[in-house]
């Protein structure tokens, strides 16, 4: 990555990045991908987030579901670790708590495939500046 030389370049880069995130489908033959974020902070990992992460990536591949899986930091719901956030195309992100492998399987089968929410949704309860 070449160095960012000035604030304008930085803004351009940001625009490119947001655009790219929005149009990921361009370079895939699938339609809109699902975005899955898995909290991977100390508490999450201690609660088994790594297993959840591995299970989900493997399961998605096996079940041929187009999704972008990334790790992220603490979502703040320590009581409900491991937590994951799923954004289906064109919808608001939904956070699920206590996602072990069984739960992950249920989420894939129900929410990802059928758009059906499952128990354990964590309501988003914050606002952020952007």
């Amino acid at each position, binding site marked *: 990555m070449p160095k960012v030389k000035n604030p304008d370049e930085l803004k351009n880069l940001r625009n490119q990045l947001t655009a790219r995130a929005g149009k990921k489908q361009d370079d895939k033959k699938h339609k809109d991908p699902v975005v899955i974020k898995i909290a991977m902070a100390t508490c999450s990992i201690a609660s088994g987030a790594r297993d959840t992460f591995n299970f989900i990536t493997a399961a998605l591949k096996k079940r041929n579901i187009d999704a972008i899986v990334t790790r992220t930091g603490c979502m703040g719901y320590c009581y409900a670790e491991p937590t994951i956030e799923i954004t289906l195309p064109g919808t608001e992100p939904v956070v699920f708590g206590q996602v072990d492998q069984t739960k992950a399987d249920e989420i894939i089968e129900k929410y990802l495939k059928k758009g059906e929410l499952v128990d354990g949704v*964590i309501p988003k309860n914050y606002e952020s500046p952007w």
Partner: protein
Amino acid sequence: MTVKKKHILVCNGTSCQNVAHDEIFNNLKKELQNHGLEESAGLVRTACFGLCEKGPVIEIFPDKVFYVQVKPEDAKEIVEEHIIRGKPVKRLLYNEPETISGKESGEKARFKRKQIRIALRNCGVIDPENIEEYISRYGYEALGRVLDEMTPSDTIRIIKDSGLRGRGGAGFPTGLKWELARNNQNDQKYVVCNADEGDPGAFMDRSILEGDPHSVIEAMAICGYCIGAGKGLVYIRAEYPLAIERLKIAINQAKEFGFLGRNILDSDFHFDIEIRYGAGAFVCGEETALIHSMEGGRGEPTLKPPFPAQSGYLGKPTNVNNVETFANVPVIILKGAKWFSSIGTEKSKGTKVFALAGKINNVGLIEVPMGITLREVIFEIGGGIRNGKKFKAVQTGGPSGGCLTGKHLDLPIDYETLVAAGSMMGSGGMIVMDEDDCMVDFAKFFLDFTVEESCGKCTPCRIGNKRLNELLDKICKGNGAMEDIERLYNLSIVIKDTALCGLGQSSPNPVLATLNHFRNEYEAHIIDKKCPAGVCKALMTYEIVEENCVGCTACARACPVGAITGERKEVHRIDPRLCIKCGACLEKCKFNAVIVN
């Protein structure tokens, strides 16, 4: 793949659960079945919405319509009106007079329970190991703006105007601190990030570094530009390996992208960051101790003045801020001082991150505007007390703070109010206690901590805290006398008055706070030789209830000291002189025949 049209989200948080939750859920289910909607509409249980006061609550997804104080008999109306006809049930909407539509009411309700995440804005949102995700959320644009358009003094003015105060303890105004460091001329200056989160029970700094390390790096660079420092140091706890790892990755990426190094973003400004490790010493949260530790020495504090801004790391002007303080900075630059200072109270601006822990349902990390009440934090966002127990107290400010009780629940949380109530903001740990916690024992827990963590340099902290701890121990063991209360009080006052650093000056706070608010518990230990919460072992007696004992011998076999005697199928007895109060008998007895007094 299509999303079901509607979902009914039923709050399954503890306090909603307590109010006919199952009935509501079942009624809703029945209603959906009655209308043949099982397939097209979903019904799920969710975690706490954080609006417990108005519970039970229900949200219709994705409409963002929010129903509060729902009763089982409302199920029919909700399903028929909202799910089928798409018309919100007005009478159940979150009750704001000006509300017209369901959605607006939902937004209001959401706002009401809402946290504002400034410092935590990217935590749980971006991939902390990917700088591009940080950039895509305006990352490094504050640095860019500062370098491109603003002088150091302009920038410091914004920080000053924003009212941002140090988030690590006493709440010194950040902008003023920067200005002091700026005004001390020297060819070499340092920016230090204090990431030695020592308060046991606080973990916001760890979370920020694990979830959004770039925000700290960016802020440190901005600070470096403002005060004229070319080098930053992060002093981080060795106990945080993941945070260290992510910080290292982030520093490397920032260098690669040119946000650290020479001529950052084409300016004349050069800045680099190095990492220094803490090694397990709470006192190193104190600036001067931290600096001595970074210099490779024992982390003993020294008297201020000279302040680090005058003579800090290697004797050079140094500005020390903690992680959370830094994490606020880029947002303030981009959104302006006015925006930031519109949040919070008169003297405490912005938000504060709290780590909610202890006997609370929604243990977690929250960020709330200053001025929010303890009640809102504990009973709404925090979902109330676990297992339906009674709230007793909450410790804020860690070992340096004090406990606040039921009568403080409606106090607005800000620096001054907490100090006035005998506690402090500290780094933001909030440990909630219920009726099962003994406050004398709890004070002793903190004194154990300070005794262990005192650096040993000054007399009041080195010996005074030890004596406080011994007095508390004496009381917990049932050997206390009423005059010990007076001694605890007097000694505490002198330790606060004479100790060298913040650790010693605040270490008696847990004692004073519990003495003030729970004097009756001290008296119970001293006069009645009883621990009301049943925590202090020495004051407990184990007995066998004759009527319940079947003579199974399980208790006698479990007793490690042979204090229990009795023939098979006969009533057993515990010899109180031998009993060590380990509780093994209680654990083993299947007939509720063992009781503790």
